[in-house]
Every structure is written in structure tokens, then in C-alpha cells.
């Protein structure tokens, strides 16, 4: 009984951590917009935590470059399982317009495994919330497969 309650709770209490991996701030503003009274993601139990050790879902915006790829990997490794990664915006998905730049590695998936890609430049708050919901379904699936 307790096991099924934990399983149910996972989907109901996703704590997100937001990492700006060198984004223009467009996507970051949209991520933070989700927390405002208009979208109020706390309705779904989503809390924006600043600590990878407390986070369940990692939201990454912006291109990955050679400077911050270590930081991104480090943050990912500090998150306890089960966890999900969501790449947000054109830059996070593929590298966007900066893809060919000499200092850019590319999308987030070059460094860590990504579960959900949220497109847009910038991504809309509705799309980000959708992405988180999809990410939760994915990590519920992952947990079940592991068991």
C-alpha cells in the first residue's frame, strides 16, 4: 500500500531545478513565468528548488559549451534517482542558432540523457508545463522498468 502511495506521489510532487546553460534568458523568463499566479505550477505540487539534491526534474535551457558542460554533468550526477531531464528551447534541444559556433558542444543530450524536448524560441510556459507532465510519465515508466 505504501509502495503504491509512493508511486502515486512521484507524479504529484515533482520538484524541478532549473539550470541556465548559457541561454539568452528568453527561456528562463518563460520557466519562471510558470511559477507566477497566471500559470501557478504549484497547483501540481511543482516547486522550483535551487538544489540538485532535492530535485526530481532538471530543466535545462540554452546551448551547452565547453565551459559549462562539466557543471551540467555535475548537477545531473548530484540528483538522486529517479530523475528526469527536460531540454527547453531550440538551443537546449539542438544548440539552435549557435550550433556551429566554435565554443558550442550542441544540445543538452550531448552531455546527459534527455527525456523530453520542449521546442520553441522561447518555449511557451504552457509547453514547458506539458513537458514536465510528459517527463513525469516517462520517469514513472523508467521506475517500473527498473523494478
Amino acid at each position, binding site marked *: 500500500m505504501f509502495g503504491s502511495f509512493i508511486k502515486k*506521489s512521484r507524479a504529484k510532487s515533482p520538484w524541478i531545478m532549473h539550470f541556465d546553460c548559457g541561454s539568452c534568458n528568453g527561456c528562463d523568463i518563460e520557466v519562471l513565468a510558470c511559477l507566477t499566479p497566471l500559470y501557478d505550477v*504549484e497547483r501540481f505540487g511543482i516547486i522550483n*528548488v535551487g538544489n540538485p539534491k532535492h530535485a526530481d526534474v532538471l530543466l535545462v535551457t540554452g546551448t551547452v559549451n565547453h565551459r559549462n558542460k562539466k557543471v551540467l554533468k555535475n548537477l545531473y550526477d548530484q540528483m*538522486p534517482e529517479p530523475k528526469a531531464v527536460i531540454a527547453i528551447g531550440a538551443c537546449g534541444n539542438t544548440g539552435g542558432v549557435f550550433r556551429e559556433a566554435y565554443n558550442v558542444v550542441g544540445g543538452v543530450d550531448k552531455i546527459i540523457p534527455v527525456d523530453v524536448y520542449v521546442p520553441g524560441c522561447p518555449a511557451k510556459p504552457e509547453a514547458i508545463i506539458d513537458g514536465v507532465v510528459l517527463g513525469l510519465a516517462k520517469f514513472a515508466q523508467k521506475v517500473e522498468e527498473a523494478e
Partner: protein
Amino acid sequence: MDILILVIIGLLAGPLLGGLIAGMDRRVTAWFQSRQGPPIMQPFYDVAKLFGKEKMVVNQWQILCAWVYVIAAAISLALFFAQSDLLLIFFVQAVGAVFLVMGAMAAKSPYSQVGAQRELMQILAYEPVLVMVCVGFYMVTGSFSLGAVWQQDMPLLAKMPLLYLALGYALTIKLRKSPFDFSTSHHGHQELVKGVLTEYSGPYLGLIEIAHWYETVLVLGLCALFWHTNVIWMALLLIVTYMLEILVDNTMARMTWRWMLKRVWLVGMGMCVVNLIWLYAR
């Protein structure tokens, strides 16, 4: 036998009531900020999820400290329900609070270290107030035992109103609400990431959350004793107190520990001393 039943009620009431209060707190806070807010059951979902997470610790000390914190908090509430000695309850609770700090100190993270230092400052601020309140109970009832309170035929609030106000300071600090939420905040973010809780994660963070519920119920229970004669007035007193806490939390900024020490020691302890002198002279 009766005491055993009371102890079991205390052990169960802590997490259940504490979680519900935390849920309603978040709901009312959201209402103040014209948001809808999470379901009332949200704190239970959070803790259940934390128990389902991977056990990730910096070192073994954290495990011990998280367990001692929750056990001490549970014992202090169980003693409270068993009508035990106020000083004993107070010391058991203090041991737990200190172990939380020790666990945070065991990790080398600067956030957790600074958070632990600030938590010590907070303990330094509210513990004397709690002792003074215990002394107030002694001066009114003639005993540190909680059972003696029920023999009073007038609400204690009439005899120790200033002590009740001072207890409000301790309650705000214990609930980790603004303006005293600088060691860690019950909201998502603050400048020290999560302060004293930064390095606790997964099931151990869940344990600490439960310990926090126990402590919340304990301090609210102490507040409830101020109107023991009538259940309705007792409930009303608690609701008004808690709503004021939420209002203060939403209208105040986070202050510094120097500001807190000045406020709590000068104003809070001042009120305590005045009240105690009045009780003595009466």
C-alpha cells in the same frame, strides 16, 4: 495504560496534524498571493516521494543526525501528550534541534555550513523564550507538570498574555517563516539554496520534514494550553495565531540574524520578564 494510549495518539497526531497544517498553510499562502495552490495533501505526497528516492548521503553522520532529530521530536511530542514534565519535553526537543545542526555541519558544503551557523543563532534566540514560558507555567500552576494546567479554572492567557506574544516569536522561528527564515526557508528558494537542509536529500530529507511536523504540533500544542478551559476557544486561538503567522510570513522580508537576536532578546525576552515579574508580584 492511559498514558500509553496518549503516547500513541501523540506519535500519530504529529505527522497527521503537522502534514495537514503544512498543507493548509501552503493553500492559504497561495490564496494570499492570488494563486490556487497545491492540494491539502501535498506535504504527504512530498514526503512519500522523498522516501521513494535514492539514498544519497555525504557521510554516515547525516543518517544518524536525521534519525536522532526525528526521534527526539517524536518523543517530545509523545511526552507532551502524556502530560509529562515541561522541562523534560523542552530538553528532548532541544537535543533534536542540535542534531539537525550537527548533521548539516558534517557536510563541507558552504551553504549547509552557513545554514547550520544561522540555525544555531535561531536556537539561541527561541530556546530562552521557551524556557521563560515554561517558568511562566510553573509560576501560575505551581508545577512544571502539564497535568497541573488542567486544574486551573481560568485560561492561562489571562495570566500570561505577554508570554503568549513572546511564544509567537518562537513559533515563527520554529515554523521557518519570514522574517526569521534565514537558516532555511519553507519556501522553495533562498539565498543559501536550502541552508541547513541543503545536504540532506531523499529519505533523510523526508525524515526531517516529519520531525518538523512534530515540532510544529508541539509548539502549537504549547499555544493551545493557554486556553485549556474551552475547546472552541482553544481552536479559535490556534487558528487566529496561525493565520497571523501566515500573514506575517507573506508581508515581511527576510531579515538578518542580528536583527532577530535584537528583536527576540530585547522585545521577546523583555515581554517574558515583565510578565514573570507581574506573576511574581501578584
